[in-house]
């Protein structure tokens, strides 16, 4: 087993909600976890920072400004293992929703749109700047999956990160399919690993963990249109919220 690894969290373009998830295990589990990892930088929970080598770097947020590249490269240089942490870091997440538009700045910032510090490029996953070893998908991450990724790394085991759709998890828990009740769902192309809580609660999967590696996007549009009755144009754009950079029409 890996000796108490030094773990650090870094954030780029994001809401830092995935970092907050890491503090949501409850006291007992969190304090137990701290016996096995040495958290050396984690700005949501501590003020210390480090310039030293790190064993596991969790990088949260998308890469959306060229100016962030040196910082990402520095983390990569210092870290043995880099984990893209959360949907923004893995794929650009909701930040990437702007990628196919040109006028977002005017809409979002209005009179301040021209201010230089608001300038940004296309939002992409951090693997577009540095090599990433593992991906903790999700908006937010599934904190229990993260716990297992850490655990598997501690034990020298390859982390288990599903590449099958959410349908598998819905079926396993015998959730009534959203399509059977006249609803839509993106579960057929969405990456599982969340345990499919949304359809079980009666709401469609929005693919917040992005697509599986080989999503059948054409079939999704057909089924959204044919079975869920979505107008074709709506069906075509439907999956964009969390998958803008994974879609066939990624900007």
């Amino acid at each position, binding site marked *: *087993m890996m000796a108490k690894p030094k773990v650090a969290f870094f954030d780029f373009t994001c809401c830092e909600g995935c970092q907050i998830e890491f503090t949501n*295990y409850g006291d007992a*589990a969190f304090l*137990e*976890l701290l016996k*096995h990892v040495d958290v050396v930088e984690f700005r949501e929970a501590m003020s210390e920072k480090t310039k030293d080598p790190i064993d596991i770097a969790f990088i949260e947020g998308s890469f959306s400004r060229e100016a962030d590249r040196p910082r990402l490269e520095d983390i990569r240089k210092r870290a043995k293992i880099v984990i893209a942490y959360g949907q923004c870091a893995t794929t650009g997440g909701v930040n990437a929703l702007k990628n196919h538009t040109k006028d977002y700045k005017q809409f979002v910032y209005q009179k301040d749109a021209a201010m230089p510090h608001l300038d940004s490029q296309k939002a992409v996953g951090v693997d577009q700047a540095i090599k990433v070893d593992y991906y903790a998908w999700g908006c937010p991450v599934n904190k229990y999956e993260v*716990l*297992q990724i850490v*655990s*598997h790394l*501690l*034990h020298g*085991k390859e982390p*288990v990160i599903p*590449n*099958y*759709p959410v*349908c*598998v998890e819905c*079926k*396993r*828990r*015998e959730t*009534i*399919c959203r*399509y*059977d*009740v*006249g*609803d839509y*769902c993106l*579960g*057929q*192309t969405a990456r599982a690993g969340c345990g499919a809580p949304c359809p079980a609660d*009666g709401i469609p999967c929005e693919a917040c963990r992005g697509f*599986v*590696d*080989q*999503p*059948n996007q*054409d*079939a*999704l549009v*057909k*089924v959204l249109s044919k*079975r869920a009755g979505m107008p074709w144009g709506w069906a075509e754009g439907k999956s964009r919220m969390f998958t803008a950079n994974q879609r066939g029409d990624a900007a």
Partner: protein
Amino acid sequence: MSSHFIKESDFAAFLAGLIKEKKVVGPVAKTSRQQEKFVFAQLERGEDLRLDYDVTILPPKKEFFPTQQDLVRFDGPRREGCVTPEEKVLFGVHFYDVKALDMTDLLFQERNDDRNYTARREAATVVISNIQKVSPRAFWSSIGAEIQPQGHDAWLSRIAGGYVLEPRTPKGAALLRFGKFATATPAQIAAARQANDAVAAQCPERLQGTSESNARKVRAAFGQEELWTKLAEDCFSCGSCNTVCPTCYCFDVQDWWNVDQKSGARTRYWDSCLTEDFAKISLGAGATENFRESRGERFRHRFMRKAAYLNEKLGGPACVGCGRCSAACTADIADPTAVINNIPEA
């Protein structure tokens, strides 16, 4: 064994007595937006039992081969097997699901006795119920019709005024003491037979050909790559067809540690050959290969397994016509009748 009759008005007391003394699992309703579906679940009250169900989301296989099952639990160097036989009555299983259990019974015993399955299976009493409502995608009357269900302990049939219970084993006969059963009259026995026979004509879908001719033509179509690519065009590789299948038995095994990093479990999960990574294997030194990389290959593999590959071992196709796959496939391309009927004779 002789047949027994219980009056409708005595049935609730029978169920209540059974539930009081034993763990009873049966079909119960689950609803979403007023849509009613059914699942096998432990009965808290007899009123929850829905013998008028059409089909359950998952087959009763899950009672013996759970979707997720610990095989070994460990704590440091201590290890403990997890063979957990639990006496239960599986009440109200349709005959096609018992035919599927016959298949998994064989598959989990051949060569290696899988005690995690067989111990649970042996501890169960299985009661068939006649089909009162046929599911919209069922085709059980036209597939493997020559094969009779074996692994059950009693067969319950609803007739006018009550139910006929036909025990098939001593375990099944042991259920009689829970209710006010009388010896069934020849007319009641005939009515029970009629109830089971009449429903066969109601199957909405039909598989043409015989088990042999279908096995032959599906096998012969193996090399028609364009055919399978076309059939799988809308396949999501979502594994729904596998996951709801009563005869699928593949699983994956993973180790998990608890947060203390000392204790944990080796767990098996249902796996699915339609999903992309199922056939992804290690070549060593970090390299991998996927020996069924395309959707068409995976789609074809399912039909080979269901219609041809296992037939010699099982005595017929590895499909019982429950129609769960057809209903679960949102693209509606998984229906065995639609696919197999359209493959030309070899």
